[in-house]
């Protein structure tokens, strides 16, 4: 028996043809999904006539709402960076008891239904709770006030910020920091000269994405602070009280902001593996 001869030797062309049919089918399924994402957004963008945009740009209430949205999102992102980047560094670099548990906790808001998050924050930060009461004494009110918007945004954007910053730190080999140490740097200096420059882009991308997530939040905010209205609440409010056509100009403007931010994130994110 010569086992070499028993190998099946089919015509290569038939095999190649079968292969490419399978590939076309896979690609078609994928294309459907891409269409389902892009189609609705393009449909909305097609309504961007000079008229509708002009209307939006002269709508003082809408512009004030967008300014409020951008301002609160920026505040939520800054607080998130201040508290989240150190946490991300500890999660990426130190091993301590409960690290995996905290890793998990930080991702938790992803699965919490947004109105549930709003209700939980309302209970936690309301005037009758211990923490809400303490803040009220120093003049900070959450419910139906701007800090409530920031709290809702922070709650939903923490997972994006912390996991993004953690991965950015993880992508920097700790041995680079060790090399810097043997070259005379103390731990803080090595962090500033090596780790931060290398992780910086990734952290910035995570912060921009967290900012975009803050801008896009609706369910938690609508429960905490319906008024003053952020842009997504305003759009919902107009949709329910005035109907679809009244909501379109605001939706277009907010979509444009979202797309711009998204392009920025894509530019900031490190080039992908081939």
């Amino acid at each position, binding site marked *: 028996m010569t086992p070499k001869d028993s190998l099946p030797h089919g015509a290569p062309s038939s095999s190649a043809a079968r292969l490419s049919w399978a590939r076309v089918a896979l690609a078609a399924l994928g294309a459907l999904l891409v269409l389902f994402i892009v189609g609705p957004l393009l449909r909305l963008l097609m309504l961007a006539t000079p008229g509708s945009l002009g209307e939006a740009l002269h709508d003082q209430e809408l512009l004030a709402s967008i300014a409020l949205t951008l301002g609160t999102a920026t505040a939520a992102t800054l607080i998130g960076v201040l508290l989240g980047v150190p946490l991300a560094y500890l999660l990426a670099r130190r091993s301590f008891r409960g690290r995996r548990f905290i890793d998990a906790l930080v991702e938790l808001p992803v699965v919490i239904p947004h109105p549930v998050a709003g209700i939980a924050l309302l209970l936690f930060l309301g005037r009758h709770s211990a923490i809400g009461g303490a803040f009220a004494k120093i003049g900070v009110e959450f419910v139906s006030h701007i800090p409530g918007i920031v709290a809702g945004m922070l709650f939903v954007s923490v997972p994006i910020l912390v996991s993004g910053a953690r991965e950015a730190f993880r992508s920097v*080999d700790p*041995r*680079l920091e*060790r*090399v*810097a*140490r*043997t*070259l*005379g*740097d*103390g*731990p803080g*200096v090595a962090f500033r*000269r*090596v780790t931060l*420059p*290398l992780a910086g882009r990734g952290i910035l991308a995570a912060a921009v994405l967290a900012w975009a997530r803050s801008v896009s939040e609706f369910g938690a905010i609508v429960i905490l602070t319906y008024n003053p209205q952020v842009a997504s609440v305003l759009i919902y409010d107009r949709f329910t009280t005035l109907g679809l056509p009244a909501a379109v100009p605001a939706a277009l403007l907010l979509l444009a902001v979202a797309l711009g931010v998204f392009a920025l994130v894509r530019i900031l994110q490190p080039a992908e593996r081939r």
Partner: protein
Amino acid sequence: MIRLEQLTVRVGDFVLRDISFEIPAGGYGLLIGPSGSGKTTLLETVAGHVTPLGGRVHLHGEDVTGLAPERRGVGFVYQNYHLFPHLDVGGNIRYGLTGGTLPAEAREARVRELAGLLGIEPLLGRSVRDLSGGEMQRVALARALAPRPSILLLDEPFAAVDPATRHMLRRELREIHTHEQVTVLQVTHDFDEALRLGDVVAVLAEGRIAQLGRPEEVFRFPNSAFVARFIGTGTVLRGEVTRQDATGTDSPFAAWLESGPLRFEVVAEREGTAHAVLRPEDLLLSRSPMPGSARNQFPAVVSRVERLGPISYVHLDAGRPITAAVTTASAEELGLKPGTEVVVTFKATAIHLV
């Protein structure tokens, strides 16, 4: 000077115990062991990145066990170089000089001196991403040497480069060692490296130092079967030692070693089970028995001849597989090829028992 005193270090799931050795100032030490034996972690302990569970680290005469890495005056070169990707070649070399009080001209002079020494002057403005393995290795060396450390720690510096580049780098490293008057501790898994470079070699096995000494000593007198096999000294045969005479004279004494069908005359210090190390170059091969009865002689059949340039390794079957080294010229003269019957001869004193 590097002195480790009974160092105990955790390496992943296991522990290195009782690691003690000393490299004198300006010496060149090698730490050799199989992959995963904790060599890199030991280097990181010397550098201060890893805190030992026990024992002391002394560098240039001082106990530095509790000292931060930046205060130890060591240079460290990792196996995969770990150049700073956000800095160019010059920026990498300059890195360790910018923290101190050195004036800018002195800094640049030092960068140029090292770049000259290592032949990387044309690369100074280049990005570190476009370098070849050998170039990266030279940059990593220059970076580590720039702040004039008194200690240089090298982690398998030649593992990732071509043999041709490896030759050149080895030569350069020797020159640098002399020029910079630095004490070197290099980690390797290749005993050849130890023979070529080291003043002192420590062989790591199963979490301990199995043997410590000058490379030639370790090569000629491995103290265990593990060391003998690992450094490739030659054939290791397990057998039983019995005295030739029944008198209880003090050691060493003439004895017989029996290993399967083979029976050798040896010089032993105790009876019982032992491993005999037969170095390939101590075995003489001939086509017919050689005169003189005091020698160990037995017949064998050539199973394969391995030519390595000037020297050939002859693999023999003598009941046990045995390897002999002869010059390629004499292998040809004897007409050695698979199946040739030969006589193997060696002196009792040439057998090293472990």
